[in-house]
């Protein structure tokens, strides 16, 4: 399946785009998504170990499976306040 991942802040700046599309096996987990991004986007490698992922605006774990057509977001360490 094709997963579109929203990018913010430093991640968006490193890639130069608001989102990236990742082709990944149906039912793949967030951990597998992270590995795919690591391989396909060398520019994100310095930040990637520190990012969280959210599915449908909820933080999730490495072993959370990604539903078909889910809204996935890459959340670099936050710095609001």
């Amino acid at each position, binding site marked *: 399946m094709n997963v579109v991942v929203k990018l913010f802040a430093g991640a968006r700046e490193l890639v130069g785009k608001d989102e990236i599309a990742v082709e990944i096996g149906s039912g793949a987990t967030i951990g597998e998504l992270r590995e795919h991004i690591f391989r396909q986007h060398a520019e994100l490698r310095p930040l990637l170990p520190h990012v969280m992922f959210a599915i449908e605006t909820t933080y999730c774990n490495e072993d959370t499976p990604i539903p078909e057509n889910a809204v996935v977001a890459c959340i670099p360490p936050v710095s*609001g306040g």
Partner: protein
Amino acid sequence: MIQLTDQPIDSTSLLAQAHSPDAGAIVLFLGTTRRLTNGRETRTLFYDAYEEMARKELANLEAEARERWALTECTIVHRLGEVPLGESSVAIVAASAHRRAAFEAGQWLIDALKERVPIWKQEHWADGTTDWVHPTPVANQEASNDN
């Protein structure tokens, strides 16, 4: 009440809403843009958010604070876009019958906001360079314009 806004934060009206015969203590916290960070000069700050998720996380913080403390008012407002020197990026109001709850809730809310809410600040240094601020365990948080 939670709010994301691209306008200056009106702390006077936030305080007016917190005044009530049921409150005995009102704590307001303002996080403001500071000029110097470890001797390095900030020209201005910009804030970006994953807005839909930030609103949800802020609402979660309000709900959790109201569950933990008996609050007569609980307000979190975060400004997005440019926040010039000396102006407020965030305002938190916690009001309660007694001051201990108001202080504790206020501190907890700003600490939790800085851990969980998907908002990011971009330093615009006086030397013309910019940095997105992404605190990591190794990085010294004081190296960014953190209050």
